[in-house]
């Protein structure tokens, strides 16, 4: 019998469905709350940009090179565009990339990683070779090559190229975890009662990996933000699109920092950092929620004898 020193099991049975439990977990954890609020703010900005920024980002008939004014909160750039509007309207495409790439990358990784682990044999061999090849190729240079070649006007070029190059790392992780689960008794029990292999993979294995899958989604979303803004910054995105990366691109090419318009570069940069932080905080928080050993430790006050 294993008698490791574990904290006693809880009596409070969490009520409500999964959403209620997640909500409570987020509220209880400081990192999660901050991250969630930040993310929520950005989502609201992306959904209702017109409410917050009264100007159109592409309208370039304003006086250029203005500093902070009441009409233009962050001033204007050399083309006479309102910077506040640029930053606000750029949120949408960035979030779009983050969520779609995050979800797609994770979905592909789950499929390939878990299938490889559970099916084993030739399946594992071939899927692992595929994963390893993509893993070994340096991501960012590969991205540059693909994006440069598939220079497209659509944001989907960016999304697809990042997805295609990012799934391999997560697939490896998920395969490793699925391998440790493969011999768990409850999976054997499922096979013994006559379940088919596909059922076991989808219904029995994957739900037990939710915390790793959620963490992967958050990580991949974070990297999508960084990679896409990086690509856009070096000019491989669509320069006419309104997004933080392209704003940075134009700021760079117009030497904004040197010519007295620092907020042209700083504003989108800070936004990228804040959104990335939101995802990172949520990631840490989910780790802590899933693994109590990682939670911050509180010191106990010395308790006297309760009885005489």
């Amino acid at each position, binding site marked *: *019998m*294993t008698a490791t020193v574990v904290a006693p*099991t809880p009596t409070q*049975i969490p009520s409500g469905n999964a959403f209620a439990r997640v909500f409570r977990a987020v509220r209880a954890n400081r990192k999660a709350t901050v991250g969630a609020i930040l993310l929520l703010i950005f989502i609201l900005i992306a959904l209702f940009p017109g409410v917050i920024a009264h100007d159109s980002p592409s309208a370039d008939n304003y006086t250029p090179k203005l500093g902070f004014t009441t009409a233009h909160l962050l001033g204007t750039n050399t083309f006479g565009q309102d910077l506040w509007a640029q930053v606000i309207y750029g949120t949408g495409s960035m979030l779009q990339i983050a969520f779609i790439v995050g979800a797609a990358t994770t979905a592909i990784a789950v499929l390939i990683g878990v299938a490889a682990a559970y099916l084993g044999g030739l399946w594992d061999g071939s899927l692992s070779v595929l994963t390893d090849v993509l893993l070994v190729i340096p991501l960012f240079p590969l991205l540059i090559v693909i994006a440069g070649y598939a220079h497209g006007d659509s944001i989907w070029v960016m999304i697809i190229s990042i997805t295609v190059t990012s799934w391999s790392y997560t697939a490896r992780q998920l395969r490793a975890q699925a391998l440790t689960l493969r011999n*768990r*008794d*409850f999976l*054997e*029990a*499922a*096979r*013994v*009662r*006559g*379940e088919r292999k596909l059922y076991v993979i989808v219904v*029995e294995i994957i*739900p*037990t990996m*939710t915390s790793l899958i959620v963490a992967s989604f958050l990580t991949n979303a974070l990297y999508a933000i960084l990679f896409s803004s990086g690509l856009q910054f070096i000019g491989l995105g669509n320069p006419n699109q309104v997004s933080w990366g392209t704003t940075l691109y134009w700021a760079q090419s117009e030497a904004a920092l040197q010519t007295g318009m620092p907020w042209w570069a700083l504003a989108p940069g800070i936004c990228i950092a804040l959104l990335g932080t939101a995802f990172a905080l949520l990631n840490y928080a989910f780790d802590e929620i899933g693994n109590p050993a990682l939670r911050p430790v509180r010191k106990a006050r010395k308790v006297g004898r309760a009885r005489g």
Partner: protein
Amino acid sequence: MTELLKTDNLTKHFKIGNTLSRHTLHAVDEVSFTIGEREIVALAGESGSGKSTIARLLARIYKPTAGTITFGGQSVAGMRSRRAQLKYSAEVPMVFQDPFASINPVFRVSHGMLRSLKLHRTDLNAAQRQAEAERVFDIVGLKPDMLERFPYELSGGQRQRVGFAQALAMKPRLIIADEPVSMLDVSIRIGLLNLMAKLRDEEGVSILYITHDIASARYVADRLIVMYAGHIAEAGPIEDVLTAPKHPYTQLLLSAVPDPKAPLAEVTDRGEPPKVIDPTPGCRFRWRCPLAIDTCSTVTPPLTELAARHEVACHVAQSGAEVKAFV
């Protein structure tokens, strides 16, 4: 006693090592035994004896390297169709050792049971399945409202009862219980052992009880099979084997069981499990046996009946000499 399951020279070898040095691990070698209806047969042995492998062979998780398994008169290896396989897994379900790993933690406790019912009792509709789940929970001593709980809310003993309930839901004829109480607290074990006896007496289910704890085997089982290094050393009615053990290994095992009422037997055997990789013919117990003779090194002793339904695989015992080792 009607014969329910019969194995004939059941053998399972595993290939180990890499391409440069391949060896064969003999997990189970030429094991023949029968299980009748309404009978609890205990399969006892140390780790490495092959008892868990036999469980998995009977549950069709492994395919035998040689030998046959016959259930209800039909060959198990011959069951190719999905229907036949499903029928077998319903009639011969398995209960696992680790109560914390044998139930999927993500779903409610009813999940496995309802899935089993859906797969095997296709004549029932949803409401009937629910009713059946509650009925089976009642038999194993769990309250029906526990169906809606999650595994982490249940204790180890309760989880093992869920395991038995899942097996029972499929209307089994033989339950393979792989060390079902080893990981439970002592005061909880008796409850589950009593449940197993109840299943035999009231539900008419046979149980193959795999364990390394001879005392618990004595408490519930009708017959005992002692395994050593992949072979059967001794088999017979449990009281006969325990009061008059004929194989030196059985005697060693019995002397090592801690018993506060008996004086301490100063057994000098180190307890080293045997290596069953590329074995040579001969008795695999000979290195630890104080009674070993020349034949033991060259001829593998066959399982022979020496008393009423009491079989032993030992040259010394078969020669008629009295076997008194480790006593």
